């Protein structure tokens, strides 16, 4: 007769990955960002050459300046909306957070950062290099070019939405981020955010000093340096892993205690 196996230490609660990972939010975020970027790219393909070469033409106002105005309104409204929602729904009892719930929230935070990184990819890589293909081809006649309207005033505010959103999520739902300010997190969010004011310097330079279009002009080095701050995600990664390991340890202790009391 075989010896009966002892009950699993982790049978009192659900420890499957399903209990910690909720895919709905991240899928919505990633698909939403992707659809928006696809729409932007399609819009540029259709209206870039046909209506975007002459900033004095009425068609430019219709298809590009209206898009710019819509972006400025919608994106700043979304900043206000998401960030205030995150604030208003903050956890006011964070120091009593159970370890399993804390792990679940860390996974949510990682998903939030995934959406942030996805938006940053489209900004820093896809639309940024495409900007070269536009400006090295056409005669610049306005600061609001079809490339810039999407890159500077569309994708950049969008990644700021998710970057600051992820920081706020962490600070309003995770005790360690609420208790102490994480410098790598603030750098990884603040550095790319500062690219927005750097745009002013960039346009000033193009308007007053630079008549030629080349990407390696010193005028653009502000973007380069601010882009380095994304490397602070390395520090944030280490910090999140440290916290997760700690939360896992506490969850295991809690499981053991529950196992004893259930026996």
């Amino acid at each position: 007769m075989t010896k009966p196996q002892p009950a699993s230490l982790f049978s009192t609660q659900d420890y499957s990955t399903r209990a910690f990972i909720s895919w709905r939010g991240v899928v919505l975020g990633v698909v939403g960002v992707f659809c928006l970027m696809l729409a932007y790219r399609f819009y540029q393909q259709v209206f870039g050459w046909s209506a975007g070469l002459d900033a004095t033409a009425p068609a430019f106002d219709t298809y590009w300046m209206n898009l710019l105005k819509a972006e400025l309104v919608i994106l700043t409204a979304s900043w206000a909306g998401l960030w205030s929602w995150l604030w208003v729904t903050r956890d006011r009892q964070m120091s009593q957070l159970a370890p399993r719930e804390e792990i679940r929230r860390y996974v949510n935070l990682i998903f939030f950062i995934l959406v942030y990184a996805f938006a940053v990819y489209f900004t820093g890589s896809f639309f940024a290099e495409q900007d070269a293909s536009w400006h090295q081809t056409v005669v610049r006649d306005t600061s609001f070019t079809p490339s810039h309207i999407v890159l500077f005033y569309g994708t950049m505010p969008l990644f700021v939405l998710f970057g600051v959103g992820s920081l706020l999520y962490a600070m309003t739902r995770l005790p360690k981020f609420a208790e102490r300010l994480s410098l790598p997190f603030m750098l990884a969010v603040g550095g790319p955010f500062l690219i927005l004011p750097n745009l002013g310097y960039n346009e000033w330079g193009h308007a007053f000093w630079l008549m030629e279009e080349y990407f390696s002009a010193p005028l653009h080095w502000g973007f380069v340096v601010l882009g380095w701050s994304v490397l602070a995600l390395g520090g944030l990664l280490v910090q999140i892993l440290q916290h997760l390991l700690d939360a896992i340890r506490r969850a295991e202790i809690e499981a053991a205690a529950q196992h004893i009391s259930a026996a």
Partner: protein
Amino acid sequence: MTAPNKPPAEGDFVDIYGVRWSRWAAQLSARLDVIISIIIALAVTAAFHLHFQLLAGDWDFWVDWKDRQYWVTLTPIVAITFPAALQYVLWEKFRIPLGATLSITCLMVGAWIARIFGFHLWSYFPFSLIWPVLMIPGALVLDCVLVLTGNFFFTAVIGGMGFAVLFYPSNWPMLAAYRLPVEIMGTLVSVGDYIGYTFTRTATPEYLRFIERGTLRTFGGHSAWVASAFSGFVCVLTYLLWWHIGMLLSKVTTLPNRWRSMFGMAPDQTAATAPVESHDAR
């Protein structure tokens, strides 16, 4: 961790790299590996591509900018930066020797996507004009040297030099076809020059090319090797600098939050456990 006098059930724990993990934590960790790897790939592509395109992009975008002097010198120096920083993070924290390969591969994928969708489909440039540079061989050398030596200094010297010196021969199999001589309007030009001339970049005229326009001594036409050697020297220094930038940016530093009470932490309460020790010593 187990109840006193009660042995754990089989299957509750697994051994990974000599450490005991609860099975559910190991499964969660495996899922997070995938998700976080995607984040790293996206973030590295974005940041590295932005850095590269704004410093060495002009040479990379166009076949008639890929000269024997500035392109060969500048590109490795600009490109060794993120590999060095990422090698610090991935090796020192995880002993994963993929910092260089990961960053350079991400850069290459990002560049190709941008060339296809931006330069080709939007602005109609042919691929013969806009193909991006290859740096994977140099990246592999960097990572391999790090595994074999386990030492950032040797990686800087051997790997850094290797990264720069391998740059030109890695790309020559592709570039040689664009350096064939051709006579156009009674003038000698290379095929690459003519491609750049023909497929007009309206706002980027010929004189804007920051390329070799005559050297004082070309050592029998070996400009590229001289430039590579110089680039290698600067790459060593750049690697050392950026290894430390990686160290700085991956340091976990926190400051007390004076507004903690607004964030749901009462002033006299702390987080559920004692603060985790910082592992910055590594």
